[in-house]
């Protein structure tokens, strides 16, 4: 965590698309203040021998073929709000 953990956590919360109550902040920020240092222990590990790109297995590829999706209308109609086969969202502009 940086020198001002509170500020950093506020930023992370915004990035996460969340809005926390004061009570939740107290609990979750306190948890993070213990969890993050534990996770950051891995910086001690010598990983200089690893080349991620050398050791990654090549992904299995397939032809990019167009096909009909029989469930497209089901998916759109099960959205919280939809109309005319499209997802509805609040006015943006």
């Amino acid at each position, binding site marked *: 965590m940086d020198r001002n953990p509170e500020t950093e956590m506020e930023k992370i919360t915004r990035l*996460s698309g969340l*809005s926390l109550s004061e009570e939740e902040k107290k609990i979750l920020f306190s948890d993070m203040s213990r969890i993050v240092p534990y996770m950051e222990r*891995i910086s001690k590990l010598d*990983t200089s021998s690893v080349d991620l790109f050398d050791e990654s297995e090549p992904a299995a590829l397939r032809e990019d073929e167009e096909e009909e999706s029989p469930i497209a209308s089901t998916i759109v109609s099960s959205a919280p709000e939809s109309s005319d086969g499209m997802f509805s969202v609040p006015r943006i502009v």
Partner: protein
Amino acid sequence: MTREEILKLSAYELSQKIREQKVSSFDAVSAVFKNIDEHESNVHAYLSFWKEEALQKAKECDEIVASTPDVSGLPPLFGVPVAVKDNLLLSGKKATCGSRMLSDYIAPFTATCVEKLLSAGAIVIGKTNMDEFGMGSSTEHSYFGATLHPMDPTRVPGGSSGGSAAAVSYGGAFAALGTDTGGSIRQPASFCGLVGLRPTYGSVSRHGLVAFSSSMDVAGPITRGTRDAAWLFNNVTGADPKDQTSAGVPKVELSEMESYSVSGKRIGIPKELLSDGNISGQLQKAADFFTSHGALVEVFDMPVLEYAVAIYYILSSAEATANLARYDGVRFGYRAGGAPEISELYTKTRTEGFGREVKRRILLGNYVLSTEHFNDCYRQAERARKLVCRAFSEAFSKYDFLICPTSSDVAPLLGTIDQDPLSTYIADLCTVPASLAGIPAVSVPFGKQMSRDGSCELPWGLQILGPRCGEQEILGAARFVERGGEDRV
């Protein structure tokens, strides 16, 4: 057969009896629902089930058996009632993932592994409770309320597939599918005295498994015995064009499992997976058991595993953050009211839709992926994961399989597991290494152990880990344990 006699059958035995017409599928499904009626209000293993529909399907199965001259052509699980975890899609049924976010979500298609179960003739009777999106190890983090341990309702059944384990344990299903990201099949199986197999990553398609951590998620069986575990695995495995990471792997030969012996086998115990570096209690008994049957058992060093929990939580939280970004109230699931502007809709929906543990993981994931920490945390964890894979490759060049406890403890009391999240994460030490390496691991019951408070004895699971595609070896060893090492059959 009486209801009690039917419920004592394994799933495999039931399938044989159904085709021999010694037990009807209708009676088997009825027996299971009688148990559900008796236990469900106390245990809460299921989030949904469909009794009439299941009984109707059972009747149809029985009619087909009665009118089929050669039953050998019937699919293997014909008429056998099974349950599936609620993060596996079944078309037309709810798939809530234990979350408010998906509380009314109806699956528009069926997961490949569930489709395979259905094609194999199984009757899926319901969807089981789970920690929200698979994040948790007690099934207390379900929006719909906790599942309780069927043997002791003051305790948790483990998680996140706690509903699947509890249902199989009390006879609410003959077998179940769970999913395992960091131990979610193995740990509840251990707590409930069951067999839980985390298959090789990619051997079971993830298509239709609601994503938590895509590089580690895998579906697998929770069963009362090792034979059922292997049998279910054989029926859900296979490459799937809808999952790029899936691959065909060898099926398990059930007859070879029966004749398996540990005599002459080399077995390793990673020192870092022992709580104080020493073998104690049940694990010592397991080591003695293997040694007495002619195996060589030794403790060896795998120093990178000291970092396994940190590596796992960095990578799984980062992947969870990306996977859960799709829940924004627009395309599916919960949408918060009273948000006239789009960014407010996103934030309000996610804030109201996710529970606390999920929020904790999202925060951690965004922390390790943020510009300031990406290289030191996320990239470093990716590199460290390669070291874990190398360490396992080296270990399997020396040992046929590895053993360790599935969990450092038996099932804990309700409410105790969430008091300290970091300690709860660290308790996953024995299950996350196999997840990082993508190797198969099975938890098999190995007697009972006294709870920490000394109040009762509860099941304890021995974990057996093998190399990629090593299901035959680890299930053979698990079967040997289950048989108590009796002479080859």
